[in-house]
């Protein structure tokens, strides 16, 4: 009987202890940070769009194929409010198939998918299995509502571990998406009436209206702002095309243009002309738009967009100098003056000279260039005159005679005709 009495004693001792069960729907025990219930997409409050760009890596790596994604061009990219060119359009996860193995979170390069680590992830009971196919709205709901406050990312842990193991300090937590601060910032922006997304860049003017020339200038502008790595890639691609076309005999026009634009040596082989240097952002206005170049593809350097770009560059460099407290260098001042920026007035205290000398209005500006405003306004005339002078100077530097149509425009704009001795070299300092 001793065993039975010991058993009774045990049950009596548990009778006196506090019960361990809790009333689930009312009280819920705190979930650990690494808890993972089901994958959900995270919402980028800074750009008011999901982080997911639809690259489909997670769907490919999923052992049970429970994800389907559809990608499309990001409408916000041209508006300049987001630098993602592609964004997710439709995204389904079949929670009935998902086995919660966390592989998708690990392989996602954009930290776009995270495991829901709060109770909402556990309350997915439905009556029909098909309701478990969650589409993008449901998947984003958790993060959009701010419930997914601190999603856990295993990769942060691996990198942090590796860093700690080597003795360095742990890198900052990688997960920026869907953070409460970003959500608060967005709320303020909306309160102040601005757009829900940060304005990343100037909204791009609709390309179609500017036509081929502007298209050219648009490309030039693009070349100007491109990173060296991209430039090299574009140049090599152009050279490759050129090589292939050389075997077939005739090299097409746009390949030559590309070669020229990206200042590739192959250009000199084909056309025998020296390759103009690419206008790096620091140098203000040395776009090599020789009027006489064949097939005027390079586009007119004085198009309004170019002017505006140069003015902003000048202002930026001037601003930097001012911040550093140095005296603004001469050619930046000159650039400011040319592009009539208000900053010039603040620095030198007088009106930008660009508008002062009422030079005769040279009529020979390319008719289609002046998309906005009256083509013969004093500012336009002055700009055309200076362009004519510059091209004439280049011809002199290359040792050629100034072509007579250029002479006619110079006379018409009664600009000072530079002589071969005039070595001032204008503004294209290297």
């Amino acid at each position: 009987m001793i065993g039975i009495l010991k058993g009774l004693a045990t049950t009596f001792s548990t009778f006196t202890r506090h019960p361990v069960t809790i009333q689930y729907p009312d009280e819920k025990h705190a979930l650990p940070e690494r808890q993972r219930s089901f994958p959900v997409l995270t919402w980028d409050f800074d750009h008011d769009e999901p982080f997911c760009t639809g690259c489909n890596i997670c769907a490919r790596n999923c052992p049970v194929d429970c994800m389907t994604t559809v990608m499309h061009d990001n409408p916000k990219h041209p508006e300049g409010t987001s630098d993602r060119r592609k964004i997710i359009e439709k995204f389904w996860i079949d929670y009935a198939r998902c086995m919660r193995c966390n592989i998708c979170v690990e392989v996602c390069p954009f930290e776009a998918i995270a495991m829901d680590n709060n109770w909402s992830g556990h309350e997915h009971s439905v009556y029909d299995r098909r309701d478990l196919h969650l589409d993008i709205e449901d998947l984003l709901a958790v993060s959009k509502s701010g419930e997914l406050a601190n999603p856990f990312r295993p990769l942060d842990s691996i990198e942090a571990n590796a860093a700690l193991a080597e003795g360095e300090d742990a890198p900052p937590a990688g997960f920026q998406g869907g953070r409460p601060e970003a959500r608060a910032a967005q709320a303020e922006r909306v309160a102040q009436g601005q757009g829900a997304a940060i304005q990343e860049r100037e909204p791009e003017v609709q390309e179609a209206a500017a036509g081929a020339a502007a298209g050219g200038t648009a490309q030039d502008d693009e070349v100007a702002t491109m990173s060296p790595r991209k430039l090299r890639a574009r140049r090599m691609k152009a050279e490759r095309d050129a090589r292939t076309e050389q075997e077939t005999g005739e090299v097409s026009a746009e390949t030559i243009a590309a070669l020229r634009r990206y200042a590739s040596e192959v250009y000199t082989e084909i056309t025998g002309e020296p390759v103009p240097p690419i206008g790096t952002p620091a140098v203000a206005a040395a776009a090599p738009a020789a009027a006489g170049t064949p097939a005027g593809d390079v586009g007119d350097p004085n198009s309004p967009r170019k002017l505006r770009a140069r003015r902003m560059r000048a202002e930026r460099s001037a601003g930097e100098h001012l911040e550093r407290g140095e005296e603004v260098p001469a050619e930046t001042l000159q650039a400011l003056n040319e592009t009539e920026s208000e900053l010039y007035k603040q620095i030198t205290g007088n009106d930008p000279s660009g508008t002062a000398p009422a030079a005769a209005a040279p009529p020979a500006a390319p008719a289609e260039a002046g998309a906005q405003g009256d083509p013969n306004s004093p500012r336009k005339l002055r700009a055309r005159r200076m362009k004519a002078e510059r091209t004439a100077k280049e011809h002199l530097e290359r040792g050629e005679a100034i072509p007579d149509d250029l002479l006619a425009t110079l006379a018409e704009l009664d600009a000072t005709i530079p002589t071969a001795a005039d070595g001032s070299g204008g503004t294209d300092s290297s």
Partner: protein
Amino acid sequence: MSVWPEERVTPNSDLDTVDMTVNVGPQHPATHGVFRMVLTVDGERVVDCEPYIGYLHRGLEKLSENADYRQAMGWWDRTDYLAGMCCEGAYVMAVEKLAGIEVPERAEYIRVLMMELSRINSHFMFLGAFGADVGSFGTSFTYAWRERERIYDLIEEVSGDRMFPTYFRIGGITMDLPENFESRCRWVLGSIRQGLEDLDGLLTGNEIFVERCQGLAPVTPEQAIAWGFTGPMLRATGVPWDIRKAEPYSVYPQMNFEIPTGHQGDVFDRFHVRLAEVYQSARIIEQCLDEMPAGRVLAPKLAKTLRIDDGELYMPTEGTKGEYGVYLMARGGTQAYRAKLRAPSFSNLSPLKELVVGTYVADAIVILGSLDIVLGEVDK
């Protein structure tokens, strides 16, 4: 009369009784999962037993051959779903040995710690369910479940998921232990010991329990080895064989622990061996916590997708129910050419007919409970 099915008449018995087939079907509280056993019963005695398995067959091996090594992890910890980490550990060690990947020291220690936690988890499931089989109306069940919940919470804090942690990776583990893990783990070990005392007090000395289990389906060591018993089933017959000691792997050689063995190999010894093993596992966990080295938890310079050229390997490990062996054959490429699981419950269950014939219906249920089978790994 319609009630009496025309069954085979038992020969050489004076009263022409009719044998009745009792269908201990897939949905039965005592079959620990979807397992069906058709007992032919003469009165209360079992005359014949026909086990039917395969209800939980999910094609583990076919799936593993059509997914790369990392993806297959999710299926392998669903075989012995009571001890997710043990299965993952076996699979991961097999792949690493095949690919020749070196795992950092700290990861090995954490793996051993997690595997032992899962072993305790699975043994508690046995202790709880066995008490219910013998009839103590769920008291032992709730005692065992209290501990299992605490172990699951600990595993959830470490890996993020309770039953299917997919916490190990080929080449180490996904993430290091959280900061408060050591204190949490020691607290859980304390509550495990308390739970064990409760269960011990409730069942072990109990005269009725002893009466029900003593001398029930005893098995000699030779019979056990012939039937392919491994793990607690074999140790209950007195053979001190544990793969963690016989063919050591990972950092088990640095751990010191005993191998509890029984005398008669009957149901009572099996219960005792598993009860004692929980104490040993707790000891191992404490040693792991004390000697845990610092350092990386994932091998450096791991390939993005693992490719293993020709080679084959059979990696036996000590699962909770017995020898959990993983056979892998690779012929280049990211997917295993053949993956086979040697499931301990599969072999432990095969001689059910010889064990059960001749006992009572109530004993058949208790014997089935003592085998501690998990249908996830029987049906693969």
